Structures are given as structure tokens and as C-alpha cells.
């Protein structure tokens, strides 16, 4: 069954092959008889010739430059591409046109390939490099990590998953605009001497502060944003818990500081961050195997760079690249 398309190419429609029921049983009965025939030398010769003939025919079918086979799978792929772009299946007419355009492109592609047009083309080179990278990635896809592997990985990268430290504190504020900066610092120092650590909050001993006096469970980043990258913000991170300290300078003036509580950057249980750890583990493993796969390939290559006068050579693997100007 065949038809000639408008652009002159022959399109052959072939019925898809289906496995026939009972075929496997038939084969096994036949195989006993075959075993007997196989013992005879003439049969060997005939069989070898037949195998060569079949293989040749098959090979030609696969490699015939002038034969374009459109499989149902390929049609489905064209349909999907269309649906992705236009949000629905193509109607039969559109599908026909899509196939025609695809055949058109395939013919030109094969002609171009025969002329080796892809050889010095940067886009083709990049695309093949990319395909090869995908291939390496597929071939070396890392397996699902064991619990022990995850635990080791987590312990090695614990800082990355740690929750930031948090401080709960109160402060007393001394404005530099009341009598100057030096005086504000002195006023703060004087008040500090009078403060007992049994007092955990004393805003009224200082000047009015336009923002809060009490902060509960704030992260360093938040403190820096509210008070600036200043000694006061640093003190919130470092000052001892349960006693008054200072004076510390902020973007607004001088402060006395009472740290009520501090949660150190906690290491969460692995179970709580397991998904993130697993994703990072797999990514790292993939990166490492990709590099290893490339290094294996690169071992078979020698890179020679020719400069003016001298020439050096070296291995192509990532660790030992040689180069000159």
C-alpha cells in the first residue's frame, strides 16, 4: 500500500506488526528439528548465506538514504509537539501538513548530511556536545542513597541545613542627639552601673526609641536590618545571656543590652530536612559521576596547543589541562 505525496516523495504505509498468539510454542517445537539440521556442514553454508542475505536486506532497509519511514510513534510525537504549542490535538488536515513538513525537513536534512554540512557548524557541534552530556548523565544516574549515605552527607554539610541562631532581648536607648555622641555613651555607661541583672527590662532609664524595646526570637539578619551593621547588632549575637552589657553603638545611638535567651543555630533532625538533603546528595553525586565519566573519556585524548615557537602537550582531563599562548 503506498501513495505519492504532493512533493513527489513516496510514502509507504505499513501495518504495525503484532505478536501472533501461539507463536512461541511453535518455535520451541521447531527448534528440536533445527538442532538436528544444524549438525550438517552443508546446512552451515546455506544458513550462513541466508543470514548474510537477511542481514544485508535489513541493513539496507535501515540505512537506505531514500527511504523515509513514518512510524505511529513519530506521528504521536508530532501531535504532542503541536499540542504543547497550541493547546490541543491537530485536526487531520493539520496533521497531514505537519507530516508533510516533517518529511520535507527530513529530506533536506539527509541531503545536507550526505554533503557533510554539519561538520564545521558550531550549532551542530554544540547540540551534539549537549546530547553527549545528557547521555553521560543518563548512563551515570546516581542510585537512591541509603540512610547511612544520607546521614554521612548531612553530617558533612550540617552548617548548610542549620537554622539560624535567634536572640530574645531588651535594650535601653541613648540618643546621640541629646548632648552629643560622647555624652550619650557616658550616660549609657552610668546607667549600666545602676542596673541589676534581676531587672530584665528598663526602657525608661534611657531616651524614647521610635521602634521596639523588646525583640523575641530575632535572627541576626533581621537585627542587622533594623540596627545596621553595627557593634550593637553584633553584640546581640555574642553578648552573654542573663545580664546587662554595653554601651554598644548602633545606627541610632548607644544602647544597653539584656539578652533574655538565645537559641543557638540548631541542627534540625535529619528527618525534618530529609528531602532537601536527598536532593542535594543526588545533585552532588550526579556532578561527581559526570566529572568522572568525562575524565575517563578525556584520558584517551591528548591535547596539543601550538603557540609561537614552543609547543606543549598534556592530558585533556579536567585536572591536568595543558596550555600555552
Amino acid at each position, binding site marked *: 500500500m503506498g501513495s505519492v505525496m504532493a512533493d513527489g516523495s513516496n510514502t509507504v504505509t505499513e501495518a504495525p506488526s503484532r505478536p501472533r498468539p501461539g507463536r512461541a510454542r511453535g518455535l520451541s517445537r521447531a527448534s528440536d528439528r533445527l538442532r538436528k539440521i544444524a549438525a550438517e556442514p552443508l546446512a552451515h553454508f546455506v544458513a550462513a548465506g541466508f543470514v548474510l542475505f537477511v542481514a544485508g536486506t535489513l541493513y539496507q532497509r535501515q540505512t537506505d538514504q531514500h527511504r523515509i519511514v513514518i512510524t505511529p510513534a513519530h506521528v504521536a510525537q508530532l501531535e504532542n509537539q503541536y499540542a*504543547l*504549542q*497550541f*493547546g490541543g490535538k491537530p485536526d487531520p488536515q493539520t496533521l497531514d501538513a505537519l507530516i508533510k513538513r516533517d518529511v520535507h525537513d527530513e529530506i533536506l536534512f539527509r541531503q545536507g548530511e550526505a554533503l557533510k554540512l554539519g561538520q564545521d557548524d558550531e*550549532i551542530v557541534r*554544540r*547540540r551534539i556536545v*549537549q546530547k553527549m552530556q545528557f547521555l553521560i548523565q543518563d548512563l551515570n544516574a546516581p542510585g537512591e542513597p541509603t540512610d547511612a549515605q544520607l546521614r554521612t552527607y548531612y553530617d558533612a554539610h550540617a552548617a548548610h541545613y542549620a537554622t539560624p541562631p*535567634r536572640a*530574645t532581648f*531588651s535594650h535601653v536607648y541613648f*540618643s*546621640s*542627639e541629646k548632648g552629643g555622641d560622647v555624652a550619650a555613651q557616658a550616660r549609657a555607661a552610668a546607667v549600666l552601673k545602676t542596673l541589676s541583672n534581676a531587672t*530584665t527590662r528598663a*526602657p525608661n532609664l534611657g531616651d*524614647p526609641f*521610635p*521602634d*521596639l524595646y*523588646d*525583640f*523575641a*526570637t*530575632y*535572627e541576626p*539578619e*533581621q537585627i*542587622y*536590618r*533594623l*540596627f*545596621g*551593621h*553595627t557593634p550593637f547588632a553584633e553584640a546581640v549575637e555574642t553578648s552573654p545571656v542573663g545580664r546587662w552589657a554595653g554601651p554598644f553603638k*548602633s*545606627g*541610632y*545611638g548607644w544602647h544597653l543590652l539584656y539578652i*533574655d*535567651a538565645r537559641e543557638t543555630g540548631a541542627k534540625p533532625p535529619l528527618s525534618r530536612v530529609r528531602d532537601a538533603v536527598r536532593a542535594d546528595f543526588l545533585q552532588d553525586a550526579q556532578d561527581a559521576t559526570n566529572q568522572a565519566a568525562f575524565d575517563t573519556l578525556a584520558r584517551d585524548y591528548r591535547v596539543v596547543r601550538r603557540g609561537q615557537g614552543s609547543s606543549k602537550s598534556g592530558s585533556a582531563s579536567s585536572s591536568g589541562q595543558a596550555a600555552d599562548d
Partner: protein
Amino acid sequence: MSLRSLLMAAAFGLSAQPALAQEPSTPPGSVYKPAVAPAARRPFFGELHLHTTLSFDAWTFGTKITPDQAYRFARGETIMAPAVQVRKEQGIVTTDAVPARRAWPLDFTAVTDHAEYLGAVAQLDVPGSPFSKSPLGIQLHAGGMGAFFTAAAAVVEGQNNAATPDLRAAAAAADGWNVEMKAANANYQPGKFTTFLAYEWTSSPNNGIHMHRNVIFNGDHAPAPFTAVDSNKPEDLWKYLESVRRQGIDVLAIPHNSNLSDGRDFDWNMSDGRPIDAGYALERALNEPLVEISQTKGTSETTPELSPNDEFANFERFDHIYKGETKATQHGGYVREAFGRGLVIQSQVGVNPFKLGVVGASDIHNGLSTSDEKAYASGFGGIDPKTMLPTGEAARAALDMTGTSKTVRPNGARENDPLQYGSAAITGVWAEENTRNSIFAALKRKETFATSGTRIRVRLFGGWDFGPRTLQRADWVAGAYAKGTPMGGDLPAKPGAATAPVFLVQAMKDPDGANLDRIQVIKVWLDGKDYKERAFDVALSGGRKDDPRTGRAPGVGNTVNLTTGTYANTIGATQLSAVWRDPSFDPNTTAVYYARVLEIPTPRWSTLLALKTHLPIPARVSATIQERAWTSPIWFTPPKS
């Protein structure tokens, strides 16, 4: 949790602990109900206007940063900026990606890519994509600014042309809106970092007039964007926003660059040329409660021509449209005038269409939202000053030393003037917590302020019976909410005995930045078929007083060293506040009041970039600026007689 944190969390809800679970979105028509009192609202800073590689123009500039990377950068992560981008945009010679980290994390961010053919042009980075083989694709790949105009003409300014089917197919293949939604949702950390689903509607009638609006959704999903290709009339956009709300998703639109609208954004007329009527005014007020007052393409507060008595009106102007060719018509393009026109229209049709709160943003096109003066290098890009400082021709181009600003574009227009760009602005909101619901509610009630990029914190309340010592009470904020209105609201009804409204205003400097020069209250009031305006100094640093004859105070001084690019906080104040009673109040006249806070002079981005790259400081623009904050206004409407 300590006793203090427990007690405080119970009493004020002030804990900075991230909320654990994501709450369902507040539906349109309902009021967000927080667990804490208004007095517990905190200031959050964010970005509401940012482009990535999915915007057609950003791609042509060389941007490769994705929405996901843009969000991660905004919340303080180190991201790797692709080498091809920093090579093209910053002139940095590298084959490796360059690490970039924001100087301080933002609290919230909306990536607002151009919705027209979202992601289509970025399909050129997908090898073998059909778009890369299309005629427009090939031309774009060839690069240069010519490609930008080809893309812009096809995407925004032209309706249907030969490239339309290819662009449409490429946008479908890109699936950009899903990419945007996924990136926003993946980076939302309730309590710590809020993201909004958002996009830019890029209406550009007459080849470059900005009628653009950013559309911001509340929630984790939203229907496909309504684009300028669908219609370039705001009235049609509002119909779409209505339909979105009917689907249970709250949404608002924010106009920007009214300075480049050639007088159209706050025109007296509707799109069809007829005068604004009550229906239009209602729709507009409902759909567009906010306006972007400042961004890299200039500040839209006012100009010296519109406000000749405002000595600080000449700030970061960007006043040429048609790509640098023509001066835009000023009337109808600036926010202060819109406040006045709103009162005039209200007196005629009964509704104020321009009852606008203010926000600030970057409109940066390279995916890196920065707002510090030293993290900017003109044009479309934020930079990390530690790793991405522009070099060579890129630095010279930013400082207008290459003659490119005189280059005539393929369509006959001039380039934008690189020195007219200003570093980015940001939005401040007063909200209960850092979540989508809470911040969106703050945007809707206009409890917002804009700054020219620094973290000035400012509060404004209006009422009738605030005594002169109000601000000395520790609980004054609770009282102000109870007896008055915060910025963005209407003054409560005037008690019979009251003679004038009283405003409470308090500002704190950026804790890492410059001291404050002053706080002003700008009053705009109805005067027949026109409006009048006046700026009052309500708090001055250093004990200065207004000269009673001129009504002006002596300047704060200038400590900027133009050799080192530094300044000293030896002048100005770390905080300023005032209880201000309107001395010229007329109970029969509608009026608008907003506060403006000025910093002491600091070096402008162009000065800092010149010093860093050992190039001359440009003489054509001011070497220093007074960064500032603007609050949303408070309105007074006399009772109907």
C-alpha cells in the same frame, strides 16, 4: 521559647518566628483578619517591579537570570549570574558564572515580567526550538539594539505582524506563566519572605508612551495574564481583574512611569476621550489603589515646573519619551498633580479616581533587584558592587562617555540618556506579618510608603484630638490607630469642637545609611476647578527654623567628599518626629496630606561608579542626591451639606 518570647508573642505577636503553615488566601470582598492589633504592625521592605530573562526586552539586553534565581537573590541567597550575562551587561571578561548577593535581603518581592508573549524570546536559548529558526528569532540572535526594536515592535507596539504566529507558538512552548507561578510559590517562606504572582501589562500606545501597569495577585495560582496584545486600554484590563476576583482571587494593578505617559496616566479623560465619569472613577479606584512614585526610569512625584515653590521637586527626573526623543507632557503625568486632579474630579462626579497610595520599585531588567546607590550602573541592571562592577566600555556607557546616548536608533529615536536613570526605589508596608495575606492587605489599604532605595522607616497618622505630647507616650501608636487613621486612609469625621486636623509623623533613618535632613507634609487642596499645593517643614534636624518671610529653612549642609565618595553623619538626625496641626485648614475644602522625609546629601550612583572605575564624575548631573521617602496620603472630605 523563653518566657519573654512567650509573653510577648501572646501579648503583641511580635515574634519574628516564621509562621509555620500557609494560610488560605483572603478572598476578594473579605477583610484580612490578623491575630494581632494594628499597633503590632511592622515595616517590611520589598520590590514590586522586576524583570527576568522571560521578559522579551530583558532577553535582548543579555539577561539570563530566571524568575527562580531572581527570587533567591531578592531573599539574600548567593546566586551565580551566568557569564554570558555579566559579559554583555557589565563588560566583565569571564567564562565563569559570577556570584552575586544582595547587600540585605528584601522582605517581599514580585517578579513582574512583560506578559506579552511571556518567555517567547527566551526560547532562543533552547537549541533547535522552532522560534530560533523563525525570521524574528534569527534577527534577535544576531543581537544588537536593532533586535530589541524588532522585538519591541512585534511584541508591544505592533498588533499583528508577520512575526505574530512565531511569537505565539514560542510563548506557548515557553509555558511562561507556569514557570512564573512555580518560581513564586517555591520561594514563598511565610513569616520570612513573601512572593507574589505578578506580571506587567505593557500597554504602549503611540510607539512608546508608558501606560504600563503591574498586576499583583494574592494567592498561589492565577489565570493566564491579560496582555497589551489583548487590549491596550486600562478599562479592558479592569474587566479582566474583575473576572479574576469573581474566580475568588484578589488582585490589583499598579501604574508606573506616569512620568513617561505623556500626560495620559492622570488625564481628565477616559481612553475614549470623554471626560472621566463616576463609573470610570469607581472602577479605577477599585482596581488601581496604588501608584509607583519612583523607580530607575525616574521619579513621578512632581517637577519644578509643576511645583515651582517646592525647592526639592527636582529629584531624579526622567522626562523624555519616544526613547529619549521628546520631552513628555508633564501635566497629567505626575502623582502630586493626580492627587489634585482627583479632588477636582471628585467635586464633579462624586468619586475620586486618583485616591492613590504610593509604592516604589526598581523596574530592573537583569533579574537582580538592588536598591543601594552603589549597586547600580544605569540602564536596566542591578549589580553586586563586590563582584559585578561594570568595566571598560560598559562603565563608560553608563556614564555617557561613549556617545551612545546620541546614537539614533533604527526607528529614528534617540537612546535613553544613561545619566537620567536613577538607582532603584523600594516599597515599605506596615503589616502584621510577612505573609501574602498580610502584605497584600496592607497594599490594598495603602498603608505603604516608598523610598528612593534606602530603609527610611516612616509612619503618618491623621486625627483630630492628638495633643502636642502624644508622641511621648509609649503606647502612642495604639492610640493613633484607635483615634485616627494611618497613611492611606480618610480622616475620621470631624468632631464639632475640632478646628483643624492633627498629623503624627515619625521617621527613622536607614540604620546603615545617612542621617535625616527633615520631614515635610505636602498639602494639596481643591481650589474651584483647580488645585493648590504647599510643602510645610514639620521637623528639621539641627534645631533649624523656617524663615518666617520665605517659609523656608536653611539647607542642612553637605558632607560628601567627592574624592572618596563618602559622607559623614555629622549633620542631620537619626530620627525626627512631629505633631503637626494644619495652620490653614478650611473645613469646607477637600484636601490631601502626605509626608516626605529627606536624608542629608549623599553621593549619587554616577559619582560612586565614576570613582570606582577611575572615570571623571559626570558634570551634567548632580554629584549628590538627597534620598527620600514618601508616604501614602491621608484624605479629608467635608461632610455633605
